[in-house]
């Protein structure tokens, strides 16, 4: 940790060092490739499949996977491959939004708790209280109260995942605060805003980034679960969760309707978990030489 003081001078070579090590880390390469591929599918959905994801062709109801319908069709004759592509947009967007917003909120609240010691007790008890509700149940309650919209799901999951992030940022910030070089900066007259910006926030970044990668995965799984329970993204808009929910009633006869979106969620969550593991390996000094 002592070399952190020289970060500014050595920033460029060190960062490329991390990138080089990441590019050699098999878990990172596999995880990053899969998530990149899924994101590309989401963005390029209209180019990959020219069909309208909501177009119903009753003539083609319940067609099993074939060269015409790669993932088969559902009870309305909609093309599942196209719906999974468009579902990626909603599911990845919701997961990413939760990850970014809860990350920003956690960083702000965590630094405030660590920096203003008088507020610490109150903030952390509030976080403890929020963490006492199972995340999915808290999100379920909030999403149901706010109404079935994409934004409600994002808000609900953000609130549910903030407390864990706050704990991580606060713990990291408290450790850095006690470091000699931060104390030295303080004595030499650096303002607390400068100390937070230059020393505390950069040192909270790595643990938070690792945590947020997992939150991305959890949020995507939770979004699917909420949509499955009917309080998330509403049909006819496709999300991976609600395609599974719709396909569930016909699961014995038309297994393909629910099979493919499930594989898509699993792949996305798997790749993010791999990314999180790889980032944890390389960025967290405590785990160095661990895995």
């Amino acid at each position: 940790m002592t070399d952190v003081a020289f970060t500014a001078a050595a920033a460029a070579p060190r960062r490329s060092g991390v990138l080089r090590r990441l590019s050699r880390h098999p878990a990172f390469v596999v995880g990053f490739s899969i998530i990149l591929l899924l994101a590309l599918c989401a963005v390029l959905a209209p180019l990959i499949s020219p069909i309208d994801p909501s177009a119903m062709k009753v003539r083609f109801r319940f067609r099993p996977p074939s060269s015409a319908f790669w993932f088969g069709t559902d009870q309305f004759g909609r093309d599942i491959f196209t719906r999974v592509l468009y579902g990626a947009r909603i599911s990845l967007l919701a997961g990413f939004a939760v990850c970014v917003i809860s990350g920003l909120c956690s960083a702000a609240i965590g630094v405030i708790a660590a920096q203003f010691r008088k507020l610490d007790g109150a903030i952390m008890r509030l976080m403890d209280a929020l963490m006492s509700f199972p995340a999915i149940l808290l999100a379920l309650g909030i999403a149901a109260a706010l109404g079935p919209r994409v934004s409600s799901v994002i808000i609900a999951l953000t609130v549910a995942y903030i407390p864990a992030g706050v704990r991580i940022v606060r713990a990291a910030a408290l450790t850095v605060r006690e470091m000699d070089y931060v104390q030295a900066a303080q004595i030499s007259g650096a303002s607390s805003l400068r100390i937070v910006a230059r020393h505390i926030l950069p040192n909270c970044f790595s643990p938070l980034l690792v945590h947020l990668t997992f939150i991305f995965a959890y949020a995507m799984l939770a979004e699917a679960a909420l949509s499955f329970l009917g309080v998330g993204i509403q049909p006819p808009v496709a999300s991976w969760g609600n395609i599974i929910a719709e396909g569930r009633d016909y699961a014995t006869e038309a297994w393909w309707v629910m099979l493919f979106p499930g594989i898509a969620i699993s792949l996305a969550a798997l790749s993010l978990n791999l990314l999180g593991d790889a980032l944890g390996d390389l960025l967290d000094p405590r785990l160095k030489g661990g895995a």
Partner: protein
Amino acid sequence: MEAGLIRIVAIKFLQAVPVILIISVLAFLLLSLLPGDPAVIIAGEQASPAAIENVRRQLGLDRPFVEQLAIWLLNLARGNFGSSLILNQSVLSAVGERLPVTLSLAALSISFTIPVGVFLGSLAAYCRRSWIDTFVMTVALLGVSIPAFWIAILGVILFSVQLGWVPSSGFVPISEGIGPWFASIVLPALILSLFQIGFLARMTRSAMLDVLSQDYIRTARAKGMSEWQTVGKHALRNALILIITATGILLSAAIGGSVIIEQVFALPGIGRMVVQAIMARDYPLVQGTMLILGFTFVMINLLVDILYTLADPRVRHD
């Protein structure tokens, strides 16, 4: 008990008090989260003005906000968690009725999880960087990545519809025989365990790697202790601490997961009740149940902290 231990237990207790208070206020605020008039939402869009007025009075929504909060907290202090609008039952008795289902599910899944998760995690750590490690960690990764409700539906198709090994839905109380009870929840419990086993195996592996690289393990090996004694004696103690910490998280995950699993298997537990209450806009029932679950987790965490302090003497001297 030593003074240090008593002090820590007392501090933990005192910290739990404000948390319980905040949970109560948060659950109360859930109703005011509703956009629009809660009375209209609860009574339904088509309800007559008289019916809406009735709901408003029944819930005390016609009183000032602070008074509402005070009444809510006083009722809680008396053990009154409110009443359901649709079930014609108090929240406490509704939850009590469904507790055996959710508890059976959580207990069975955790009793699968702990031995399997700890064993797999320790095995991976001990055989670090071998094919066993890679294999176990891949399985664990799949466990935390596959959505439970999806694998649950696939499980029903395979084990209930195709093979006919277990019933596809419904719960049989344990009073009607252990066999039928077990058959009714073994599949949901196993599916609930998948995520938890993955989680616990990953946690165990990193904790064991940590322990195995400690100086005292090298010392134990250097002084000629058998491998079994080294790993068994030192690691078991640390595994115990880990299991206590993990059990709290796992219980929380099991209850959260049961919300979804109970829905798929039509098990009449607390999770299914909450989902139905949310769909039926029975907000007092949602509020009361969230509160009871919140309190339960505070108690579980308190217990975990205390057991942790008992198992790990280092914590006491902080």
